[in-house]
């Protein structure tokens, strides 16, 4: 029983990280209408930036986090300006294939700089909370859930209250109409890609807290993000909030039933099952 509770908690933590990770992916999908396969690499970039600042250069925790988020956001924007913006008019399929190429480039760069070895962030581990003699959850995990929740709430507020947020929602529901109404697409997409990069960087740090850093973490995360996005309905920002927890819980509770080697495969199985039964996602708008 304690084991089940523990796995549910792990699943919640995984879900919180996935939520942050999928948010940027979904916003990009919504804005430019393509599946950005290279998004997972931004998470890896965030994790490796944190490794550089916190472990190698030995800077303070807060400074490292702020710098990481800021620089990953810039990376996101840079990737957009350099690779995606010039080919936006070529259509969805070209964009997806380009994003596969961009993913390969970023992954190669990460592997080149970080090396093939496995790294760990070794963030300060807090005390473990014990309930009835079982060590259930460390404060790190509670921290992750809180950080991700707060970020999501902020972004939700941003989308609903600010002018830019409203512009984003307008563009995502009807691009042409929004453009004729005078919404500045240039500054909007700059903002969205900064947000996508920033949330990805934050999610990367959180990933480094619970796991280790490997060169192929970017591709793995891309797969999980895609399953969240498909389950939540591609481009549906509120749908992914529930979907990410479903995927996280399925993976971490599922390994009680299936061999643990199948943990990633469970996320992919969700993709296939959802696409076969309800291709528009469960939480259709």
């Amino acid at each position, binding site marked *: 029983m304690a084991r089940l509770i523990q796995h549910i908690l792990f699943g919640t933590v995984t879900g919180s990280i996935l939520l942050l990770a999928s948010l940027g992916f979904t916003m990009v999908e919504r804005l430019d209408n*393509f*599946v950005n396969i290279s998004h997972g690499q931004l998470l890896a970039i965030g994790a490796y930036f944190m490794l550089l600042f916190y472990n190698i250069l030995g800077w303070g925790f807060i400074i490292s986090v702020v710098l990481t988020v800021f620089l990953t956001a810039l990376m996101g924007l840079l990737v957009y300006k350099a*690779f995606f913006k*010039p*080919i936006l008019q*070529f259509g*969805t*399929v*070209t964009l*997806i*294939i*380009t994003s*596969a*190429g*961009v*993913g*390969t*480039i*970023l*992954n*190669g*760069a*990460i*592997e*080149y700089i970080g*090396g*093939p070895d496995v790294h760990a962030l070794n963030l300060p581990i807090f005390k473990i909370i014990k309930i009835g003699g079982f060590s259930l959850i460390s404060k790190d995990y509670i921290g992750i859930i809180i950080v991700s929740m707060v970020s999501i709430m902020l972004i939700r507020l941003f989308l609903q209250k600010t002018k830019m947020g409203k512009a984003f929602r307008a563009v995502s529901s009807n691009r042409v109409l929004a453009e004729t109404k005078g919404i500045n697409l240039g500054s909007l997409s700059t903002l969205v890609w900064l947000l996508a990069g920033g949330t990805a960087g934050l999610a990367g740090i959180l990933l480094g807290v619970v796991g280790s850093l490997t*060169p192929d973490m970017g*591709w793995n995360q891309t*797969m999980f993000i*895609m*399953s969240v996005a*498909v389950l939540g309905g*591609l481009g549906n920002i509120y749908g992914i909030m529930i979907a990410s927890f479903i995927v996280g819980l399925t993976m971490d509770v599922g390994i009680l039933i299936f*061999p643990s*080697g*199948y943990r*990633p*495969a469970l996320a*992919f*199985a969700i*993709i*296939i099952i959802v*696409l*076969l039964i309800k*291709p528009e996602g469960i939480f259709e708008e």
Partner: protein
Amino acid sequence: MEWMNFLVGMGCLLSIYGIIAVAYNVQYGYTKMVNFGTVAWFAIGAYAYAILTTHPPLPEDTYRFGFGFPILVGIIGAGIISGLVAFLIGLPTLKLKGHYFAIVTFAFAEILRHMLINEKWLTNGTVGFFAIRRPWVNLMSANAYTYFSFFLMVVALLLTYFLLNKICKAPFGRVLKGIRENDTVCLFLGKKVPSFKMKAFVITSIFMGIAGSLYASMYMTLVTPSMFTSMVSFLVLFAVVVGGKGNNKGAILGMFLLIFADQFTRFIEVPTSFAVRMSSIRGIIYGLILVMVLRFLPRGIIKEKKVIYHEGR
């Protein structure tokens, strides 16, 4: 002599991947089915061949099936099983639009890779199968065999090229192009779009499976799950895009360029400290080539010929 070996090795690899590239071109270039899981059918072919032809398991082996069939049964079986899997996967997924099909095939390839690692009773886990029987290896010396296998694979590539080219030039291929341009119009013209897509998908998957069996038997003589990562799918996709989609010569040319870049970076001598980083550089090179070609030559190096089937009235 070293150069000769290098060229022959590259020719073998090129022929095998060339088969996949031409087959993939029919999927993506002609029909616009963006398959991101090509490696799945490659792996299925390789494993099917290995399981069909390997010796029955000894008590200490972890795998439970090894049939020890003759080589030809292995190759044909690899093709049939790949086609069957393509049929089963295609049945529900081919009606999905563009990026959904890409996502689901990508996911399928990843699930398959995890199954290859975890289902030890069938695939022997991470160890895989090694010392796979090479066809007709006893008939000649090892040196002659290298050239013989090279010859055999080139023949296989040419055969694939002519067969698939014939299919593409036939009315069947024209319908596929029609589906690519506008599937609704095709439907209105009375063409059974799902059935055409399914036929194209199954036929090309059979070729991919056979390529997989050749790769397992004649080139590598072993199969392990680590050989079938999503990088292979990307390589094939990149080759078709770079060479020119909707154009079988272009697919082979694109594959040649990528394989050459790959083999050359392996062949040149570099300090050992640098050698580990070579694979990451390769990834960067591939990605850059793809992004550049898509941006500046969106239709690839060899452009698809515009065919006018019926001029005037």
